[in-house]
C-alpha cells in the first residue's frame, strides 16, 4: 500500500463545488488504491454530506466563511472523512426541500457516522469506512 497522504480542502459552499469536492476525494481514493464498490460508497457519502451543507447549513443568511471543509485520511484499515461547516448548527427543518434521504444514505454506507456541533459554530460530520 502506498502512503498517499491526507487530503484537506476548503471550498465555498455552493452546488457547483460539489462535483469538484467529489473529484478531489476520488483522486485521494485512487492514491490509496481503494477499489469499487467501496469507492462508490465513499463518493456517495461525501456528496450527501456536502449537499447538506449547501442546502441546510447557511440558510439563515450570509456568513463570513460560508465554506465546506473536508478532510480525508487513512489510518491502517480505516478511512475517515470529515465534513464541517460554519453554519447555524444541526437542526431539523419541516420545510426541507429534500426527501430526507441524505443522512440515511450516509448511515447506510458508512461503518460509523458521527454528527456533532463543530468547535465554535456549525456542524461536523465524521464518516468512517472499513477497508477490510
Amino acid at each position, binding site marked *: 500500500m502506498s502512503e498517499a497522504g491526507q487530503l484537506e480542502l476548503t471550498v465555498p459552499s455552493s*452546488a457547483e*463545488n460539489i*462535483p469538484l469536492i467529489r*473529484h478531489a476525494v476520488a483522486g485521494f481514493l485512487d492514491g490509496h488504491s481503494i477499489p469499487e*464498490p467501496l469507492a*462508490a460508497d465513499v463518493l456517495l457519502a461525501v*456528496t450527501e454530506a456536502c449537499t447538506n451543507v*449547501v442546502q441546510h447549513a447557511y440558510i439563515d443568511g450570509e456568513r463570513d466563511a460560508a465554506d465546506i471543509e473536508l478532510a480525508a485520511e487513512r489510518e491502517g484499515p480505516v478511512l475517515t472523512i470529515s465534513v464541517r461547516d460554519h453554519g447555524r448548527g444541526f437542526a431539523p427543518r419541516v420545510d426541507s426541500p429534500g*426527501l430526507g434521504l441524505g443522512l440515511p444514505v450516509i448511515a447506510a454506507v458508512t461503518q460509523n457516522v458521527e454528527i456533532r456541533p463543530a468547535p465554535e459554530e456549525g456542524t461536523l460530520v465524521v464518516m468512517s469506512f472499513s477497508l477490510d
Partner: protein
Amino acid sequence: MSARAISVLRQNGGASVVTLLGEHDLSTAEELRSALGDASAAGDGVVVDLSQAHFIDSAVLSALIASHREVTGDGRGWAVVVGRGSGAAVRRIFELTGLDALMAVYERADDALTAASSGPEAASEA
C-alpha cells in the same frame, strides 16, 4: 472535470427519453427537473436513461421520484434504465433505497421504452 449532460429526446413510440451522461448531483438537479418537466409536457410516457450515468445522488433520486409520481399519477408510463454502463454509485443508490419496488427499473433502454409507451401497468411489471 468529466463530461456531463442531460438530453431529452421525443420518441415516435409514445414516450420521451431523458438521458443523463456523466455525473449528476445538486449542481445539475435544476437542469434535470426542467428536462423531466419538458419530457412530461410532451404528454406521453417518460423514460430516464441512466445507462451512461456515472454518478447520481439523492438529489437526483428526489427529482426522479417527483417525475415518477407526476407521470404515473396521470395514468402515463414511466420507467428508468439502470444498466451495465451505469456507474457503481448509480446501482448502489438504487439498491440501498429499494427504489425498484416503487418504480419500473430496466436494464435495457428498449424494454423501458416499450413499457413506458404502454402505460403505467406495463411499466410496473419490470
